[in-house]
Structures are given as C-alpha cells and as structure tokens.
C-alpha cells in the first residue's frame, strides 16, 4: 500500500505520522513545494520579532522523516493528479498511489492593485517570505489587514524599531475574532505601543518607481518603504479541481466528516478544505493550526482503515499583544449575525472579558489580560452547556469537587464578582 501526501504542513505531517503509527508497513510519500522540513508558520511573526530563532521554527528535521521511513519529494511541484490511473504527476516523474491525501494548504492573497509588484511588497506565510523581509531591512512599514498575522507582524516590526502603520478596511482591528469593545482595547494597546492604526480605510494603490515609496488609501497617502499584505488567504485547490474533486462554495475542497472527498481513496485536510464549525455546524474555512492538526489525524486514521469522525472546527485564537494575553474562542457576535447572542461582559482596569450566550448556552468567549480558567470555558463551549447549569454547580457547590476546573472559570461565569474568586 502506498499513500501519497501532498503538502508538508501540519495536517500533512500529522496524517503521515498517524498512518505510520497505524500501519508500520505502508509506504508513505510526502510531496512539497518548499524544500524545507516542517516548520511552524504560526511562529513566523515571533521569529520576525527575534523571540524565536530561525532554527527553532522547525518542527522536524530531514532525519525525522527518515526515522519514520517517510519518502520525501520536497522542492517539487505537483503538475497533475490522474485519478483514473491513480498517479500524481510531478515535473520529472510520476508517483502511483493507492491512497492520496491532499494537504496543499493556502497561499496569502495580494489584491490586484497598481504597484503590488514593486520591490518592497511582501507577504508573511513561509520561511522564505520571512527571510525576504529580514533581508529588505524595513524602516517605514505599512501592514494591510489586521488579522492575526497583521497584528503580530506589526508588533514584531515595532520591536525591531520600524515605524508601523496598520490599515484595516473594516471598522475595527481583528474583526473576524473580536467584537467592537475588545477590538477597541486591542487597538488602544497597539497605539500605546507606537503602532499607528487606521480602520475603515481602503488601499487604492502602491506608489513608487522601482521600489515601494508610499501607499495611497481612499483618505490619505502614507510614505513607506515596505508593504506587508495580510489581507487573508486563498485555498490551494487548483490541481484538485482539475482532477475532478468537488470544491465547496467557500472555495475549499469539499469533504465529509471523515475527510473523504468525492473520489474514493482521496482524502483532504488542513487549510485547503472546507470544514464545518463545531458550534454552529455550518461550513467554514477554519485556517487554524489546531483544526488542521486534528483534520490531518482524522484523514490519517480513515486512510489507514480506522474510522474516525471530525467533530468540527473550533476557533481558538491566543495572541499576546503588547504583553497582554488576548483570547477569542467559539463564536463572536459578528459570526452569528442572524442569531442574537446575549453578551455578559466585565471590565476592570487592565482586564476585560465577554461571554456570549446562544439561548443560554455558552457559545463564545473573548478576553484580554486573562489567562486562567479559560480551558474550562472552552470545554463548556464545545459541549454547548447551559450557563444556568454551570451556575447551579458553582452556587450550590454541588459536585464541585468532581469538576474542580469549573472553579477556575467561576470568575467569568458568575459575572466577574469578587465573591467567586477562587
């Protein structure tokens, strides 16, 4: 049996490891465009800030693949997937497969504007991008987009002594994972640290001759020598589409909860697929590390004949912004627009949190400056527990010794009162 895995990201690697554990005698081949062993893309901004060295980004070394007896075809592009003869066509050869796992990931988007090809335009998605930014020695930086990567890169470059501006098209920073109020606090944190934040502004053009000299928005012109595009990603699904694999309406490869595509023997996992949300059960593009890892595991298990079902993607974003831990998990007010979510919030001088309820069930949490007891909240969101049920346990202390971790979450669940401080 030969399993071919396209992609060397977290889900591809998790799938490979899972198959190796289940089926020690199967042949596993991994194909990747980048000629590097697996690394953590989440830590790229940390590396940019200088907190993590380049070597520490790597999760595996080439010898780890040899130890797991995984054949690597790195630095090679997949030209074609021939589903009729079960072959993956590379530039120089063909590889036959019995099972195929697509973990081709996603790529950062650069909008088609004037001047985006000038020297000084960057994305931050791979080690290669990181090296290019470092070699460019940026001084005046504009970051377009204020998602995780945008905000983290802003802080990192600020630390390196750059003059940083974030431009966000929507009305607040990190609009996907934080609601207005916490988002305003994050904005204040960034601004206090010297990052200029512009929201509700649209980038029109990058100006310059030969290299980037400035960026023009619908409100102003900002001089800069570097533009980092952090506006989002697009799924790498082109080869899959050509091979006749179904693509969903959101642009990811369509899979069922066992990570199977419409073609038998072909699985898909990671950033390139369209999965569904654990909380709302609706299709979504998860694009988060833990989801990709879990999907890889599910694909690996099903591929090696052990049935496993994916429980759904769960949004968990943990971001240390200017020394404060900013956490968002589950639904946000913006994500479930049509359902009115009830909000319980609490703010004291350095900390803030809000708990979102969907018909009394705990559906989401956003917090700034809080670290402890959040895992219990996450478990409660995942199990869709009624807040009243948890409150009863905490108020009466009935069975609290059985669920001591509720105690850690009490300060959030009881509305932030001091009497419930454990």
């Amino acid at each position, binding site marked *: 049996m030969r399993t071919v895995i396209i992609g060397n990201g977290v889900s591809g690697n998790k799938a490979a490891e899972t198959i190796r554990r289940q089926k020690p005698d199967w042949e596993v081949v991994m194909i990747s465009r980048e000629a590097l062993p697996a690394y*953590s893309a989440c*830590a790229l901004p*940390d590396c940019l800030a200088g907190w993590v060295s380049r070597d520490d980004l790597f999760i595996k070394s080439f010898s780890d693949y040899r130890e797991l007896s995984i054949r690597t075809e790195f630095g090679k592009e997949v030209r074609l997937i021939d589903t009729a003869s079960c072959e993956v066509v590379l530039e120089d050869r063909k590889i036959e497969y019995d099972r195929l796992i697509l973990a081709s990931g996603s790529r950062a988007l650069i909008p088609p504007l004037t001047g985006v090809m000038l020297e000084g335009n960057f994305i931050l998605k791979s080690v290669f991008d990181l090296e290019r930014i470092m070699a460019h020695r940026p001084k005046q930086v504009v970051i377009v987009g204020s998602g995780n990567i945008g905000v983290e890169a802003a802080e990192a470059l600020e630390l390196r002594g750059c003059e940083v501006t974030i431009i966000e098209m929507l009305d607040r920073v990190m609009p996907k994972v934080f609601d207005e109020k916490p988002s305003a606090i994050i904005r204040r944190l960034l601004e206090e640290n010297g990052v200029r934040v512009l929201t509700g502004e649209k980038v029109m053009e990058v100006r310059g001759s030969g290299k980037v000299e400035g960026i023009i928005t619908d409100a102003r012109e900002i001089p800069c020598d570097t533009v980092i595009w952090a506006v989002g990603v697009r799924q790498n699904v082109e080869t899959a589409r050509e091979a006749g694999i179904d693509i969903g309406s959101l642009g990811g490869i369509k899979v069922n909860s066992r990570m199977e595509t419409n073609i038998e023997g072909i699985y898909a996992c990671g950033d390139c697929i369209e999965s569904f949300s654990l909380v709302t059960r609706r299709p979504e593009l998860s694009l988060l590390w833990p989801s990709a890892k879990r999907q890889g595991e599910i694909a690996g298990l099903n591929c090696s004949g052990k049935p496993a079902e994916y429980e759904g993607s769960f949004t*968990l974003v*943990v971001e240390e912004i200017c020394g404060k831990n900013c956490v968002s*998990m589950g639904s946000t007010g913006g994500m479930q627009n049509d359902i009115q979510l009830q909000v319980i919030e609490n703010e004291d001088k350095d900390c803030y949190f809000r708990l979102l309820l969907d018909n009394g069930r705990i559906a989401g949490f956003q917090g700034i400056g809080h670290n402890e007891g959040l*895992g219990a909240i*996450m478990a409660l969101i995942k199990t869709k527990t009624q807040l009243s049920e948890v409150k009863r346990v905490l108020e009466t202390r009935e*069975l609290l010794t059985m669920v001591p971790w509720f105690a850690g979450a009490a300060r959030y669940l009881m509305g932030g009162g001091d009497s419930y401080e454990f």
Partner: protein
Amino acid sequence: MDKRIVIDPGKCDGCGICELVCAAGRSGTWHPALSRIKVKKDPIWSLNLPVVCSHCEDAPCGSACLMNIIDKDYSTGLTLRVLSRCIGCRACQVSCPFDACTYDYRSEKVVNCDLCEGRAPECVSCCPTGALRYERAEYFGEEKLKAAARAAIIEEAEPVPDKDTPGLKRSGGVK
C-alpha cells in the same frame, strides 16, 4: 496502566505544601505560582480543590500546541513536552479544560506535571492529609468522574444537607 496522582479533595485542607514542594523541587524557588499542582480554594464553603495534569488520552494541549512539542509518551501514557522549543504562546494553557498548565514567567515557557520526571511525585510524599495518592488506576477521564459524581448523588440523597455547615457533607472525591 501506570501510576498517576489521584486526588481526594474531601481530604485536602488547603495547606499548600504540595505547591511549595513542587515549586521548590521543579523550578528552584519557593514560589507557589510556579507549582505544577494548584490548590483552588473556595473561601465561602471552604472547599480545597487540588488540580494537576491528568495526562488526558486525547490531550487538548497537544492539539493546540503551535510548535508540536507536546506529545503522548506511548509507553507511559504521560503528556510530555520538549520544553527547549516552547515559545510560550500559552495556547496549551488556554485549551486545558482542567487549568493544569503552569506558565513559568521566568523562562516564559508553559509547563505541566510530569510526575517528577516519572519518579514518585514529591507532592504526594509530602501531603500530610492523604488527599494526594500515587496509585495505579484504570482510567482517568470524564466518564469516571461522572460515574463518581452519580454515585455521590445517590449516597447523599437520603440525609438532608445541614444548612449551617454547608459543604461538610462532601467527603470522598475523585478516586
């Protein structure tokens, strides 16, 4: 099945010796914040709830780790970390349902109980009340806790709880 720390909250009097011993033994300072076992205290009902890494089968910390450094040791079942590569992002701490990860603010890394590197845990040998034990157990998990909780309800259904001494009815615990 290997040995684990078994907690009996009913016997815990909240002295905090386990925290001190753990902090001193594993991080070299007498600072309870660095302890990997934590005693959560409820001042109103005087409940003391020790919490420590339960080495979950399907560890949420492991799936959240951005650096893939948390993994199960398949021979012992322990959840272990390659600390040298931890970047201190706290994703594991936030995803642990039991709040059993400890952020070491000195090294800026997150640690969990590894049963004193697989030797007999110091906190257990120093526990004066017997609330902590180091024993073999077949299964640690939600199911077992639920079963214990159900058993406790049945046991306590008969006597009406004394309103003046709330919480004192509680004995026994996670076994």
